[in-house]
């Protein structure tokens, strides 16, 4: 008969099998696996409470869950959006920084510098637009601020050189 520790190990093995089929960001994978772990643990607990042998419970829960097919379905669901996220995370700050760089040049083509730039409303409009667009896309301040930080880092480089 399987002990609680053994059933835990079997759930770990199911999770490893699912993780092996995922090629997503570490945060996405961590959240998916945490959610799946909860499901498997709840299902095994329920089955054992109903009097099922823990060994059988783990096996049956794994089959019912579809360990073999779920990784592919999760990958198909999340991968396109992860790619889109990465593209947006690159395009938004680069585009914003390029626009900002364009704004730093006066019509004659000479660099206006930060002193001039800071007085132009367009600097703040571009900056706020980059932040707002990231926030609208990601719905998370953490990601939006990371994109915004990247935008400012690029801007400093683009404007300085």
């Amino acid at each position, binding site marked *: 008969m399987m002990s609680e520790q053994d059933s835990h190990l079997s759930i770990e093995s199911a999770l490893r099998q699912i993780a092996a089929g995922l090629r997503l960001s570490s945060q996405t994978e961590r959240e998916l696996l945490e959610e*799946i772990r909860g499901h498997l643990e709840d299902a095994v607990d329920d089955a054992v409470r109903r009097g099922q042998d823990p060994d059988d419970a783990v096996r049956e829960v794994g089959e019912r869950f579809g360990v073999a*097919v779920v990784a592919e379905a999760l990958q198909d669901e999340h991968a396109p959006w992860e790619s889109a996220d990465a593209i947006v995370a690159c395009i938004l700050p680069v585009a914003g920084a390029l626009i900002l760089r364009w704004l730093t040049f006066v019509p004659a083509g000479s660099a206006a510098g930060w002193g001039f730039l800071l007085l132009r409303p367009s600097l703040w409009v571009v900056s706020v637009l980059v932040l707002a667009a990231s926030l609208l896309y990601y719905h998370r301040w953490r990601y939006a601020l990371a994109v915004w930080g990247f935008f400012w880092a690029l801007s400093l480089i683009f404007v300085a050189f």
Partner: protein
Amino acid sequence: MSIRDQIRKGSTTLLILAVLSEEPMYGYQISRELARRSGGYFDMKEGLLYPLLHRMKREGLVSSQWQTVSGARRRKYYAITKAGLEALQEQAQEWQMFMSQLQGVLAGVNLS
């Protein structure tokens, strides 16, 4: 694909929305509730519920929130959104219309 599989595939979103319209639930709870209410008729691989829930979240039909339940253990609860409720109404009406028309057509069929 069997007729049952085809019907299930076309109606799983509706079933999940119907279950969530009563209260927020976590994945395993949704799966149990679906099995209980349908007597296992809509039985599917439970793991396939998650890609579906994640797609519904992306489409704005449900929202999700992690909640700590005991110690460090967390559960992700899904709740129906306003857009989800509207979709539920629309899809439920569509299915009722479909079933009503289907029954009309099948009324003359001898099933014995």
